[in-house]
């Protein structure tokens, strides 16, 4: 088979963030401490994006950064906190100030909304949320937050949640080829559905892998190239969170972050130093320090 001249989808982080328009909606990949696209959040802040809506199950530091810097004004999420450390102080402040609106769903509801978007059907059925304020109380989505109906087959109550097809999906993976075929190690969280639901998809990866290697292990391709519009390759994209088989979380940095965000002044200091005070992701990594970063490298077979 002739190998056709292939498209190279690689662009810089700055170019990728530039494509996001003020007011856009983003599926936000990663789950908890795992594969959070922190570098992309930083760049959105540096480029002073405004009025973004972010859709995810449960992200942590990245949601804090985007809420704190005023990049995002609407969240459709299930969870915000820094697990094991405590509350999300930036989000808490921005909500109290009326600068951030959170439309509350559950983890399964959000995952189903991404699945529905990927399947291109307008809703998905769900057995959670019913009977509680998650059904009764709504913010900007109003009656389109969800619908509880009588199942036309069984007569049981069932909750329909609206599918999502945001402007962009932002997903962080371990490896990608220049066409966009992406491999994910470890758990996938809701990223398979999330990657497939966006109108456009930007994949951030720690490493480049050759297409010929992708083709020897097709079962490892978790996101096929045909979904992918742009590829960004950079190391330590998730720092201070973790990337399975690549590096562990930076607990010291994370605790510093969480402590500083307790006050608006502390947060502004973190923002000025670590995000606005550097030109790009390498500037951030230089500030964190390569010796520190190296200590976080994963140990086989544990993956952290």
């Amino acid at each position, binding site marked *: 088979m002739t190998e056709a001249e292939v498209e190279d989808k690689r662009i810089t982080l700055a170019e990728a963030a530039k494509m996001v328009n003020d007011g856009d909606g983003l599926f936000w990949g*990663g*789950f*908890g*401490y*795992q594969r959070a696209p922190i570098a992309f959040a930083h760049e959105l802040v540096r480029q002073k994006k405004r009025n973004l809506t972010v859709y995810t*199950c*449960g992200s942590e530091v990245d949601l804090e950064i985007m809420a704190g810097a005023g990049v995002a004004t609407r969240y459709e*999420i*299930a*969870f*915000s*906190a820094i*697990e*094991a450390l405590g*509350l*999300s102080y930036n*989000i*808490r402040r921005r*909500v*109290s100030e*009326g600068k951030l609106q*959170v439309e*509350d*769903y*559950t*983890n*399964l*509801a959000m*995952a*189903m909304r991404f*699945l529905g978007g990927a399947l291109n059907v307008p809703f998905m059925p769900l*057995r*959670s*949320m*019913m*009977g*509680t*304020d*998650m059904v009764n*109380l709504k913010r900007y989505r109003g009656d389109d937050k969800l619908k509880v109906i009588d199942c036309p087959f069984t007569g049981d*109550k*069932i909750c329909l949640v609206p599918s999502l097809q945001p402007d962009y999906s932002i997903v962080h993976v371990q490896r990608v080829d220049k066409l966009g075929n992406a491999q994910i190690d*470890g*758990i*996938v*969280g*809701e990223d*398979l*559905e999330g990657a497939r639901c966006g109108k456009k998809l930007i994949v951030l990866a720690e490493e480049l892998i050759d297409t010929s290697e992708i083709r020897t292990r097709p079962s490892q391709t978790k996101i096929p190239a045909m979904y992918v519009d742009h590829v960004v390759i950079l190391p330590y994209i998730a720092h201070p969170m*973790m990337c*399975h*088989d690549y590096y*562990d*979380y930076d*607990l010291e940095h994370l605790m510093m972050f969480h402590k500083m965000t307790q006050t608006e002044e502390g947060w502004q200091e973190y923002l000025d130093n670590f995000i606005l005070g550097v030109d790009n992701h390498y500037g951030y990594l230089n500030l964190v320090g390569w010796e520190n970063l190296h200590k976080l490298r*994963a140990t086989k*077979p*544990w*993956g*952290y």
Partner: protein
Amino acid sequence: MVEYTKTEFLIACASSHVKDGEMVFGGTGMPLLAALLAKETHAPRSNLISEAGFIDARPREVPLSVADTRYYYGCSASIGLIETLGFLLQAGRIDVGFLGAAQIDEYGNLNTSYIGPYEAPKVKLPGSGGGNDIASSAKRLIIMMSHDKRKFLKKLDYMTSPGYLDGPGGREKWSLVGGGPEIVITDMCQMDFDSATKKIRLKSVHPGFTVQDVQENVMFDLIIPDDVPTTDEPTQEQLDIMRKLDPNGIYLGKGG
């Protein structure tokens, strides 16, 4: 006499409610240690599941996040959210879920979302996460809370997760898959639910506390049985195991 901290006491107490062979949604923190402790002692064939996608996990170090890679190596499957929350939990395959909460009412309904009015919240809490999913669909629910009068309310600021909703028949009306809360463990007592009224009921008081202490620290009418035993203390074996599970005191605390 066995010496232990409050945290260790609560973990041992929670652990006793996990039965052998059960599928347990563990999460992080005290519930995780309780589940691991149960597996090391009376429930060796219980299965620890993290909602992020890890199945039958046996972490050698305590994870900080449900998505922590520490859950990975040695688990028997590692998939995603639709698998754990949809195929397992919503399908009724999870026996026990653990939940914490900022507020609870007399039917075991939980608030983990907002303190203050929804329109202008005083404090934005973490939200449901998988909590509402777990409360809706796990066969049994173990709730762990710190005991503070302002948390045991007649009316929640926001109902995030269903207990027995408005009482008998409440869950059935919405065809909820799971059975609802079984036990509430606080730092003062254990509470269960009256099967007829679905209202919360004192089950045992922890050593050092009285029935009156508990009554004074809830803002609803608590059912008090005639006989309220004292909660069992942890055994030395349980303490040794949990200290081995969390040698750095990440959840047990440095003073552990």
